[in-house]
């Protein structure tokens, strides 16, 4: 079997160096393929590389959108800040006890949230090194 393969290779070598022989059937297939390629070229528009100016404009638009979103978020945060600071001031003027309880509960909740997120991150596996 191995011998046969090597014989075949030796026979094919001189053929590969000379002009390849194409049968009539193969030629028809190649012609058909080339015709199809030409038709495909006509149907599919040629993709051209995007212009640098267009890309720069896209980047500028994206930056502007991000900045606008950040400003809106900051405005929302400012409104929340007004409500919270106003509420806290009212609370401290009304009752020191209620204010103290609120502060204690907030501290406990915040520490609980921090601890919980730390435990969750540990369970999940800290993959910061992979970044």
């Amino acid at each position, binding site marked *: 079997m191995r011998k046969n393969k090597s014989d075949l290779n030796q026979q094919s070598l001189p053929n590969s160096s000379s002009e390849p022989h194409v049968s009539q059937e193969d030629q028809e297939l190649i012609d058909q393929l080339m015709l199809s390629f030409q038709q495909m070229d006509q149907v599919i528009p040629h993709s051209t590389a995007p212009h640098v100016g267009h890309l720069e404009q896209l980047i500028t638009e994206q930056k502007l959108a991000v900045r606008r979103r*950040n400003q809106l978020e900051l405005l929302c945060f400012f409104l929340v800040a007004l409500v919270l*600071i106003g509420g806290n001031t009212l609370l401290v003027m009304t009752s020191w006890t209620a204010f103290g309880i609120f502060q204690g509960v907030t501290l406990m909740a*915040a520490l609980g949230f921090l601890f919980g997120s730390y435990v969750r991150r540990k369970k999940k596996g800290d993959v910061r090194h992979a970044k």
Partner: protein
Amino acid sequence: MPSEYYHPIPWWVVVLIAIIMMMQSFWLFTDARRREKNRWFWGIWGLIQFPMPILFYSLFHIYLPHRKSKSKRDPS
């Protein structure tokens, strides 16, 4: 409102505390947004208390990661 249920605070104290809270919470909010670390949590906590949020934020998101990366760079 009866006087025993109302404890007036000087206006300048209220303004001073409000400014401190605002500055702290805005810094926490923007920095946490930059580092992608629960910006609303840090911002809202920064509006309620001082100086616990800024201390914990500095510890958890600035000091400890900095020390960790430093020890990774220089193991000795």
